[in-house]
């Protein structure tokens, strides 16, 4: 699905890689056994990508409807917002939605970097991998 997203314009690519203002932050906590639901925020798609990375210790705690609206309103990326909505509809579980959205965001960040000619960040290594 992510491969179907049209390439962003340079202007949109800049917004995709940008950090938003505190006022525009997205509530996004974590669910962790023995700690509970802890509050937090996300302030950009690069951070969202890290936040959604699969992690055996905890789960992202985010409202995906609100996430799609936030992508539309704050990042102004209607294609990605619609893709995340579609991914959420297609997923058979909350965790599947997290994984699918993570993949979508990852692909969108790659597209944005490609459009702007920026290198990929150091490593999108999985938790537990040797650094």
């Amino acid at each position, binding site marked *: 699905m992510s491969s179907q997203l049209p390439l962003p314009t340079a202007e949109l690519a800049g917004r995709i890689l940008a*950090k938003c203002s*505190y*006022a525009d932050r997205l*509530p*996004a*906590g*974590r*669910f*962790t*056994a*023995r*700690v*509970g*639901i*802890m*509050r*937090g*925020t*996300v*302030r950009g798609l690069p*951070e969202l990508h*890290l*936040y959604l*990375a699969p*992690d055996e*210790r*905890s*789960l992202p*705690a*985010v*409202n995906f*409807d609100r996430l799609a609206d936030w992508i539309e309103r704050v990042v102004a990326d209607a294609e990605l917002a619609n893709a995340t909505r579609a991914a959420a509809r297609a997923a*058979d*579980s*909350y*965790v*599947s939605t997290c994984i699918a959205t993570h993949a979508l965001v990852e692909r969108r960040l790659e597209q944005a970097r490609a459009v702007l000619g920026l290198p990929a*960040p*150091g*490593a*999108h*290594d*999985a*938790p*537990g*991998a*040797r*650094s």
Partner: protein
Amino acid sequence: MALYGYAGKILRLDLTNRKAMVLDTERYKSWGGGHGLGAALFWEFCKDKTIKDGRHPANVCCVAASAVCGTGVPSATGRTEVVGVGVGYDGINWFTRSGFGGRFSTMLKYAGWDAIVIEGKADKPVWIDIRNESVVIRDASGLWGKDTWATQLDIWKLIGIETGTHTGWVALDDLKDAPKRESGDAGRTTQKPAIVAIGPAGEKSGHGALIHDAGNGAGQGGFGSVWGSKNLKAISVIGTGSVKVANPMALIQARQALKTKYITSYEAPDFRQWSRVGGLAKPLTQAPIPTEDRRPQACQGCVNGCRSRSNLGYGNESACQETFWYNEFAQKVAKSPNEMGELSLKVADLCQKYGINTFVLQPGLPWLEHLHEAGLLGPGKKIPSSLPWEKLGTLEFAEKFVRALATGTDIGRDLADGFVPGARKWGREVDLRTGALQFSYWGCAEHGYDPRAELEWGYGSIMGDRDTNTHCFNFMFTTVSAALAYALPIRVDAKELVEIQARKLVPYAKDRPEVFDFSDRNMYSEAVAQLVRWQQHYCRFWKNSALFCDLKWPDLINTNTPNLEGATGSDDAGEHVFWNAVTGDKLSLADGIRLGRRIWNLDNAIWTLQGRHRDIVQFAPYIYDTKYEKNELFPFYMWPCRDEKGNWAYTDLMGRSIDRKGFEAWKTTFYRLEGWDTKTGWPTERTLAELDLGFVVDALKSAGRLGKERAA
């Protein structure tokens, strides 16, 4: 007659006069150990029980082991309980508790001591050097100002212990400053002294924790600051003795039963089992650890191993919340999970070294960020701060932030007595009404189990002295919610779950599954009050006094067993089976819970003398005034509930608040069940007599705070 399980002596330290005295444990044995023992010692030796700040010189801090420490009782033998009047809350800092794992209590007992009573205040910094029966109060001027790790390493060197990981036999007579002996020898050991120390946070702020080894900490209660106020830098103990067990065969049999019947097979593990005691060793490090070369690390005698050691050189032995609180900010600057993990674990190390209570930082730092972003806090702002807020998320920011809080500098000056007192100084009470500052009860940080959804957590905390931090029941929320999130089958349906668990709830709620019904219509009920009573009394004895670990006990339901019944209260591996094997007692699970009620009532007598009245037993305003917004974060907060027809189902509990009138009615019910004065919440003479606590009546009477009997 042998005092099985106990070392036999209690060390009483008078820091003011630099005296060490010996008390006979036998006199206090009925309290079990840990919290009960500490509360009884506090009652006896604290001459002013009206004090409201743990830094008052009259405060008495007790550090206590239990009968099972240093034996082979699984997930129970390595914990230490700390009690006394605390620091860092709001208004009255209650007589409170904290605890830490590791090997301190075991070594204390091997040295011949069951507990330490710390009284008075030294005129200059001291540390305590315990080597079996030898107790020396030593000058700590060279240690003052050092971090907790440097302090421990320095003490090892001062004693003459080789640092590093190599070990071998050490003769106590060969150590530096060993007492001269006329005959015999002082014994030998392969172990290093166990040390609990404070860092700069304990010396200079109200956020001080006690740290032992690399990552065992007693954070809540601010006992590091209590020690700092007494000029007590550290206690070191090395012992060469052992603990006499009444029935070693019964102890081994119970261990075997636990392993074979209740714990999932290590050969074919059920990773999705529902149980508390039944899982395999699993580190609770809550940040990505950037290496696979790691292994679990456990408290002495524990079968779990909730911490981790690796070859990284950072983050070793830190677990749970201290590895988690900075994640949210680290993720804003990190480029990968590994980088985020490295940041969070290095920040955990910082906190361990400064000896700071990280619990307050979890909701505390987001609130400070909120103030900064609102233009209220920062350089030249209404709340001046020269911290590099633009670098929030970096190691540099964390280092400066933690140092400011630990040393009472920058914003740490105004927050030194706690975050809520700090908010009042800054005129930010509004944040307690809106929930921008999530400190839910007694000025204590919200844990992550919102009281508006998870009633037993909230009610237990507000009827007690701090965030209760007792995970007796809330695995239901995490397990069921996680299963739903992954779309996994629900292993046990709600009706069966509550019925199985209710079988264990002796003596108050046996076979009363309705106590688990947290639905809107049942949230202020007598049933929920009974559940909270069971939890608080169970914990006061079995967890806080006998020192069974909160991560593993109680085990009420267990999918590793054919009938799904957990180990708690069982005839083969129940808490009481282990206790009796060690002590030779004949306790039942219910006997322990009754003892817990006695201890809980002694606590309430102390709180009453400190100034508690039912009118001030209130949550932070946002718990009443705002709803726990549905699907704001996680999509559901599942808990067993009954519908209008009485059918059980796992139900989402988000979207509600606590109703003031409902909660007041619930308090009345709780007080009535406890036998307390329903108008004041104070203990009554009849209840105290019933619990063999008649000795506290005079003090309450003299203070004009003895409760009255009220008609139902």
